[in-house]
């Protein structure tokens, strides 16, 4: 085992501790023990999180499955008749699922463009004093409890939507008037409720776009509008996608506000129909449900849980693709 040009191996110091009197194999120092302890605590906390997610998943599955097992997946997921308390009960939740999907999609289509333009306005165009008013207002909007949105929806939105309904269906013999408590109202409330999340997340994404990209675009003679729509927004895409997905999550899971403004009948999700969402079905019926009915409500919870999981997996996938 020769090292060095002369083939002679030399050790500079004969003591194992070297010149400073420190051995690399010496007992771990005090700081190192603190490091180890801290690491253990972090690991423990992380494990708690995993445990929480795992047990929630298990619990939801364990309670959501029995109704499916008893009634059959077809009967519960793909049938549209929901009569849980009838003499001959029926537990089809198809309309409820469709309502949640339609309500969320429409709220996103309505809310996201408004939110994006607001974020663009805040980052690119707003004079400082105006931005200083708008930004706290948006943060406040995020902090308002959802039930308050519901109350305001009842007071303000429902009458307006009712007027629209009366105008659209004037002279109609067949339309069941909802008094404004319908899918349209719910969509409008949801669209407003997702605004703060989508605005602030996409604003952060827009701000993170390097100043030099903007400068390079302008230096080529592009206008500000061209720069915003062709450079800044595409560059902020991953963040904007995240914002939209978070908005979807918020809209799918919203119960209180929607419960107050959407009427509550199980119905085809059409704008002027009184409708029931996955969330509002659980909230409004759990109080008196028992037996199979109760189990069916847990199945609804499981479906909702599945949607949220799907949204999150989608988010992960998109973000990973953007990176790679």
């Amino acid at each position: 085992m020769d090292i060095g040009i002369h083939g002679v191996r030399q050790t500079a110091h004969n003591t194992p501790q070297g010149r400073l009197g420190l051995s690399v194999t010496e007992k771990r120092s005090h700081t190192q023990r603190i490091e180890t302890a801290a690491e253990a605590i972090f690991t423990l906390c992380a494990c708690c999180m995993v445990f929480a997610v795992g047990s929630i998943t298990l619990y939801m599955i364990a309670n959501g499955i029995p109704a499916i097992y008893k009634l059959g997946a077809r009967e519960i997921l793909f049938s549209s008749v929901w009569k849980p308390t009838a003499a001959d009960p029926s537990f089809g939740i198809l309309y409820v699922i469709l309502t949640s999907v339609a309500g969320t999609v429409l709220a996103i289509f309505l809310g996201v463009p408004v939110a994006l333009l607001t974020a663009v306005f805040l980052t690119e165009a707003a004079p400082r004093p105006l931005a200083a008013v708008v930004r706290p207002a948006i943060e406040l909007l995020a902090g308002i409890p959802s039930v308050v949105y519901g109350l305001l929806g009842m007071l303000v939105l429902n009458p307006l939507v009712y007027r629209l309904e009366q105008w659209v269906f004037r002279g109609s013999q067949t339309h069941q008037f909802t008094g404004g408590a319908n899918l349209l109202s719910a969509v409008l409330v949801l669209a407003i409720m997702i605004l703060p999340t989508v605005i602030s997340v996409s604003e952060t994404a827009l701000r993170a776009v390097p100043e030099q990209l903007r400068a390079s675009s302008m230096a080529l003679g592009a206008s500000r509008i061209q720069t915003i729509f062709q450079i800044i927004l595409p560059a902020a895409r991953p963040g904007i996608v995240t914002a939209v997905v978070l908005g979807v999550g918020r809209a799918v899971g919203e119960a209180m506000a929607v419960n107050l403004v959407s009427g509550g009948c199980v119905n085809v999700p059409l704008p002027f129909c009184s409708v029931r969402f996955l969330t509002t079905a659980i909230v409004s019926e759990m109080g008196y449900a028992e037996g199979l009915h109760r189990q069916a409500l847990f199945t609804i919870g499981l479906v909702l849980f599945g949607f949220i999981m799907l949204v999150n997996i989608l988010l992960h996938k998109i973000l990973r693709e953007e990176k790679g």
Partner: protein
Amino acid sequence: MNCIKIETTDLNLYYGNYHALKAVTMDIRADAVTALIGPSGCGKSTFLKTINRMNDLIQGVRITGRVCLDGEEIYAPGVDVTTLRRRVGMVFQQPNPFPMSIYDNIAYGPRVHGEKNKNRLDEIVERSLRRAAIWEETKDRLKKPAPGLSGGQQQRLCIARALAVEPEVLLLDEPTSALDPVSSLRIEELLLQLKKSYTIVIVTHNMQQAVRISDDTAFFLAGTVVEWGRTGQFFSRPRDRKTMDYIAGRYG
């Protein structure tokens, strides 16, 4: 003898109350490389940006004096900044391709100026990449994302992107200071090629680089131009004491 392309007369620039350029009077010759040197914070970038009016983007900037491009005052009312920036292109210190394909990066400028014809765009893209000496490396991956290129390639891509709108002047703000020595030399070679048909103004921290590539050199100090002239004379027989000190390495 090249004629004068850009002429600044008694140019002053203020960032709010801060007087960043003080009575700068200087000529920049056409089809030559002019190097701007000086310690950090002396106003080189600020001066460079007055030439394509990029300072317009910063709030609270006030400018007095004149900047003329081919004898036309560029701060006069009624000047179209878009056209000005088209004629005076700019490359920044950090290579910063847009997050899109190589092709779209080059085509971006022509497109915002209204070019839609696919064949014309193909032509422009190839010509610009060739001029920036990066065609061979990119011709097989035009549709690939530009951020996947190496730093030196990205910087040449940015030069190609600036060339795509057919500018007459190219402003470069320390274009090689984020690059390794080999990539830097390639950019220098490229600039020597380009000066045959473009007026080039380059800010550089590196005096050897100024000597290697520039025809004229201007020395900035605390917002003023201490001295400017032919590069050979500038470095061999500086007229000003402060220039001498700077060349000798007595300033930061």
